[in-house]
């Protein structure tokens, strides 16, 4: 009797017959603790296991998840969430406001890697079991957007397993185990080797495909992953190297799904140095906007996209991709114009060029080294003298942070999927206390942008807010503070018969996958 019942439920939950999905990605999430790792691989995997109050739909729009609705409290004092009833964790406990408060305390704790999300929050209250009120220090129109990856944990489970706080350095029970409310639960976890997810029958939602079991294997070497996909050992890989996309597309039984990612690749400049790090003699030519504009004109982005990126990426003139909220429409950047670049250099007094350091990571972004090698040639072609160097990201960030750089390559993916995010991290004058400009390695400083940022953050009216974002975007172009190059492409390889949804945040939602045949 019981078996029959289970089978009936299963049949209802999984429309087209249970299927197994074997998928691979380059990076294994370093933890299963949603507060111990603030990175895309962690959220991508855990997004199938844990849920937040809100989530992003297929189009990236915020939609209800564990909260069925929300509304501002008063005049921007905070937000009130109404929780979904009848939700149970994988362990069987019911989900209530107590868990939300616990999850807030955990995620915003000192030990947490996600505490910055809660910087605007002053307090969290739970008036009843299914209502939660989150108060912010200032009106915060994008707060709901910023917590899409804030995952709800079971307070009882955490207490029972001594995992009430995340522990990045030592690890704890939550590092290897997960207990969420999401459509999949983790049944096996071997870090770096294999993670098995199985469909959770008690999930509250119904928007799901037929993947019963999903086996995740990290495969660092993308070429190996491609080989495994081609030989049928894997059903889905992410990413397919752009140069292999054509081959994969042509191969029998597999195809490529392309999209654009949230990540914008750009060049950064040393704005606040008196002398160049890799230069000779005094002075910093990059403080002259004409020099930066010359660089922008010198880089032949279409050619890079055509060859190195195989036509898979889109050029961009601002720091966010068109899929992000707050994207400025109709903005044009600098075209490829080497003559103009030479003119600008001559105007600035550097007709003969000058030496400077040009640094790039070689294991961080898609084809980063090849892109930089191409840029290096292009800079040399307008008479500049870059001293080009690439290194693993493990060395790259420390050197950037130690200010050992002139021109450098940077990719930025806004965690909030909002144009405000890069302004806060990349364009604000660096300020440790206010946690501003923490990735603004060049020390770019513009009073108008510093003034606009708080206004953008608290403006509730979308039109007014967009106007301010547009203004910042235009300042960026005029000033050539950074040279945005392109939006990094998303290229997944799948076996035929696998239907899926590819979102710009590169998260893999198993519930949207159906395996046919």
């Amino acid at each position, binding site marked *: 009797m019981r078996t029959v019942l289970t089978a009936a439920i299963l049949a209802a939950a999984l429309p087209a017959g249970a299927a197994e999905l074997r998928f691979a990605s380059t990076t294994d999430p370093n*933890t299963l603790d949603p507060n111990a790792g*603030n990175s895309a691989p962690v959220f991508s995997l855990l997004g199938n296991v844990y849920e937040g109050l809100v989530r992003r739909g297929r189009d990236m729009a915020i939609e209800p998840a564990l909260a069925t609705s929300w509304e501002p409290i008063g005049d921007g004092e905070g937000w009130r969430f109404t929780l979904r009833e009848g939700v149970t964790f994988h362990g069987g406990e019911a989900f209530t406001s107590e868990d939300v408060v616990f999850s807030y305390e955990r995620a915003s704790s000192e030990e947490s890697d996600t505490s*910055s999300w809660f910087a605007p929050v002053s307090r969290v209250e739970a008036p009843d079991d299914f209502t939660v009120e989150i108060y912010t220090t200032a009106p915060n129109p994008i707060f709901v957007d910023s917590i899409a990856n804030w995952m709800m944990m079971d307070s009882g489970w955490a207490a029972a397993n001594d995992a009430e706080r995340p522990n990045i350095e030592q690890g704890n029970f939550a590092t290897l185990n997960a207990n969420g409310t999401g459509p999949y639960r983790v049944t096996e976890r071997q870090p*770096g080797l294999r993670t098995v997810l199985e469909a959770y029958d008690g999930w509250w939602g119904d928007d799901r495909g037929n993947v019963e079991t999903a086996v995740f294997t990290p495969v660092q070497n993308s070429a190996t992953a491609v080989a*495994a996909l081609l030989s049928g050992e894997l059903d889905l890989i992410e990413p397919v190297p752009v140069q292999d996309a054509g081959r994969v597309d042509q191969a029998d039984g597999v195809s490529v799904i392309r999209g654009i990612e949230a990540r914008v690749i750009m060049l950064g400049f040393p704005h606040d140095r008196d002398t160049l790090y890799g230069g000779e003699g005094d002075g910093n030519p990059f403080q002259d906007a004409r020099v930066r504009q010359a660089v922008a004109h010198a880089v032949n982005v279409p050619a890079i996209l055509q060859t190195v990126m195989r036509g898979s990426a889109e050029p961009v003139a601002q720091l966010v991709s068109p899929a992000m909220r707050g994207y400025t429409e109709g903005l044009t950047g600098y075209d490829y114009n080497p003559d103009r670049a030479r003119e600008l250099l001559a105007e600035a007094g550097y007709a003969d060029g000058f030496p400077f350091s040009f640094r790039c990571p070689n294991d961080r972004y898609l084809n980063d080294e090849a892109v930089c090698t191409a840029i290096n040639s292009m800079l040399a072609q307008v008479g500049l003298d870059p001293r080009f160097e690439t290194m693993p990201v*493990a060395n790259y*960030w420390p050197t950037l942070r130690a200010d050992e750089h002139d021109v450098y390559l940077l990719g930025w993916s806004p965690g909030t999927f909002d144009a405000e995010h890069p302004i806060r*991290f990349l364009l604000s004058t660096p300020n440790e206390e206010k946690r501003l400009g923490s990735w603004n390695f060049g020390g770019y400083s513009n009073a108008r942008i510093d003034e606009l940022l708080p206004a953008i953050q608290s403006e509730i009216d979308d039109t007014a807010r967009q106007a301010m974002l547009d203004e910042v975007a235009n300042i960026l172009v005029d000033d050539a503070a950074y040279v945005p190059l392109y939006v990094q492409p998303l290229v997944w390889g799948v076996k035929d018969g696998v239907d899926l949804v590819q979102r710009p945040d590169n998260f893999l939602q198993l519930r949207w996958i159906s395996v046919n045949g």
Partner: protein
Amino acid sequence: MLAYIIRRAFQSVIVLLAVGLVAFSMFRFVGDPIEQLLGQERTVQDVERLREALGLNDPFIVQYASFLGRALQGDFGISYRQSRPVADIILERAPATLELAFVSGFLALTLGIALGVFTALRRDGWAANIIMSASLIGVSLPTFLIGILLIYVFGVQLQWLPTFGRGEVVDLGWWTTGFLTASGLKSLILPSITLGLFQMTLIMRLVRSEMLEVLRQDYVRFARARGLSARAVNFRHALKNTMIPVITVTGLQLGAIIAFAIITETVFQWPGVGLLFINAVQFVDIPVMAAYLMLISVMFVLINLIVDVLYVWVDPRLRIDGRHA
């Protein structure tokens, strides 16, 4: 013998300490672990707190001393990347590497010795010459390229063999083995060829030259002069004597197999300690790197010790202690 082992062990400890020191001093240049541990939205306070918690603010020598102190108790610390005890991780990964190294070493040894003997006995034959020349291809291409080519041919084009990983493994207590499943065995083929090819060539060439040397010895002549069969002369007399120098070099080569496993494991995504190490370098996971290096050194020292014992076992001239003819 005992004195020998004690002296060896003493030297080994010094070697281990030196390796540890060298390794540890190297880590400071690999990068900053904090960058890999915290996400892009972390704050300066987060960084500082974590640095302090990980002991990264201590002077280098203090870090080394505390690492050594704990290592002596079998505690290699907690992996930065996985937030788990390094000892657990290494134990978990070791079977994969050891099985791969074992199969490669076995291939290298058996094929190396067999082909070495063959080419020595048929010194001027065309087959021997072809084997000798062809074997050089094995040492004339980088390991990673051989791996990639094997994957391309046997994995992608012919689709005969798996391209990555260990296949299905069976748990035997804390040990996991790929020997008991068909997919596990199939998965072993390409990586072990890739890893063993180079060593096989070296062993084969060494066996050949030592064998040629031994075949010229008086006692082989004398064995021939006594009318012993070709089999007895070549194997009972010549091969056994050939093994003495071969054992030493082979020991070193087997040690090298484990070291070379880094590249093979990277190419084949073989979930062993070599891959673990490369990941650790990528993520600046200092405790894992340190433990790996110590492990390699210990293995090397052990292999050396085994070689020495074998040496004595094979060669009766070394067995006499105190007696004098």
